[in-house]
């Protein structure tokens, strides 16, 4: 005879390990994966601090996102300890998790004991719809989407690289996008700067970019800086941003940005383009090398085509800008392996991606020192570069 539901639950509980809420409380923040197997609506009403939401119906397909290591400790809970018991058996028997336990009494007992409950800020129904493809990825989910919505990203330039980056970060729901650009839209920009359009020639790029972003995603707060970044304003502009996207077209600003971002410990996702070639790296201060560790000095003007207008395949800033946008999202979410300490070289004609290692320079004039030792006067200083560019006309 088939067992009753109560009998089945008793049997399942006899086959798995359980854990009391008091022990779980001590394990919070200790790196143990705590998984809430209730439905997402139940999760939204409050959950254990740091718990990941994987509704039981999605357990098999999503558990690896929350607990990739099958030999590591995993704690499951639900409302009362029943659904998590079944889920624990599934992980143990079918998926080979060695150290999985179900929390006795579920979140109901947890709350009765007066332990802390985290209430997630809920996404609106429209946001759940808009970001539904993010919510389906375990590495992002509602928690990651909230991180994106809370993030502040600064784009230096709304040009070739900044255009695709801004559009995709806006679409992804990055909550605040700062844009620095003092230029106006020119017809020759439209071969690659896809955030602008033919009706906006002569319009300031920051305004044109804002209009496109608003039309794409009203969740995004656009902060406009219609100015050129220089030593007098850089600290004020970049302070408070979580990530900076560097797409500037000249060396003085790249070195200036590097020095200021190291001082303020803000990661910079940097790319550059020329012709059919692109470079990309992530400079995360004090965790990896900085731009000066990579390039100690700018090249002389004749080897630095940044001084004037140069040709570029219109698609190339799209490719490189979206690699930048991807790195930004990874940094915000804390997932994957950002290109820290690596320089990616993309050759569009050859369709090849080459990677070289970048090391921290123990003698780096900037990042070998403590941030508070870097003075205002030192930001962006290097030998006579502007004179070089002026000479090159």
């Amino acid at each position, binding site marked *: 005879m088939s067992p009753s539901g109560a009998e089945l639950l008793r049997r399942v509980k006899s086959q798995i390990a359980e854990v009391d809420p008091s022990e779980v409380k001590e394990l919070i923040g200790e790196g143990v994966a705590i998984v809430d197997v209730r439905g997402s609506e139940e999760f939204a009403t409050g959950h254990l601090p740091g718990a990941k939401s994987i509704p039981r119906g999605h357990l098999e397909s999503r558990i690896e996102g929350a607990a990739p290591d099958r030999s590591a400790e995993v704690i499951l809970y639900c409302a009362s300890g029943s659904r998590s018991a079944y889920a624990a058996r599934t992980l143990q028997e079918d998926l080979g998790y060695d150290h999985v336990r179900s929390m006795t009494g579920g979140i109901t007992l947890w709350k009765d004991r007066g332990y802390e409950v985290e209430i997630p800020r809920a996404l609106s129904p429209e946001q759940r719809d808009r970001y539904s493809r993010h919510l389906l990825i375990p590495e992002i989910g509602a928690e990651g989407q909230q991180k994106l919505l809370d993030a502040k990203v600064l784009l230096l*330039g709304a*040009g*070739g*690289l*900044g255009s695709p980056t801004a559009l995709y970060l806006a679409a992804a729901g990055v909550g605040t996008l700062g844009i620095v650009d003092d230029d106006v839209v020119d017809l020759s920009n439209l071969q690659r700067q896809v955030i602008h359009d033919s009706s906006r020639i002569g319009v300031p790029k920051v305004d044109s970019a804002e209009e496109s972003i608003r039309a794409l995603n009203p969740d995004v707060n656009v902060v406009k800086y219609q100015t050129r970044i220089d030593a007098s304003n850089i600290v004020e502009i970049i302070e408070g941003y979580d990530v900076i996207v*560097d*797409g*500037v*077209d*000249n*060396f003085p600003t*790249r070195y200036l940005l590097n020095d200021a971002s190291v001082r303020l410990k803000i990661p910079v996702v940097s*790319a*550059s*383009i*020329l*012709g*059919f*070639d692109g*470079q990309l790296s992530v400079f995360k201060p004090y965790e990896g090398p900085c731009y000066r560790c*990579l*390039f*100690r*000095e*700018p*090249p*002389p003007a004749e*080897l*630095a*085509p*940044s001084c004037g*207008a*140069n040709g*570029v395949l219109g698609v190339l*800033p799209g490719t490189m800008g979206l690699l930048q946008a991807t790195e930004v999202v990874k940094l915000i979410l804390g997932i994957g392996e950002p290109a820290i300490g690596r*320089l990616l*070289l993309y*050759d569009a*004609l*050859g369709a090849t991606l*080459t*990677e*070289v*290692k*970048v*090391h921290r320079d123990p003698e780096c004039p900037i990042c070998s020192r403590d941030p508070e030792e870097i003075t205002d006067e030192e930001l962006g200083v290097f030998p006579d570069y502007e004179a070089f560019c002026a000479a090159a006309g």
Partner: protein
Amino acid sequence: MATIKIPPVLRASVGGEKEVGASGGNVGEVLRALATSHPATEGQLFSADGELNRYVNVYLNDEDVRVLDGLDTAVREGDTLVILPAMAGGD
């Protein structure tokens, strides 16, 4: 024979090629061989005192030669050298 990957700004100096072969037992010799067969690259790679210019990075396969033995780093048959000056285009 090692393969040298030529960056965009130097391609005009090597007849437009993206890759050039050159022989030598170490990085310095290979780069000297390149400068000999394509003299226009010499001033771009080397300073007046014969050192590699500070604004040019050279990688043996994927490693920066500065953390190896610099120009004395041994080069084996089939190795790839990447020459990489800084690039700032973004517009």
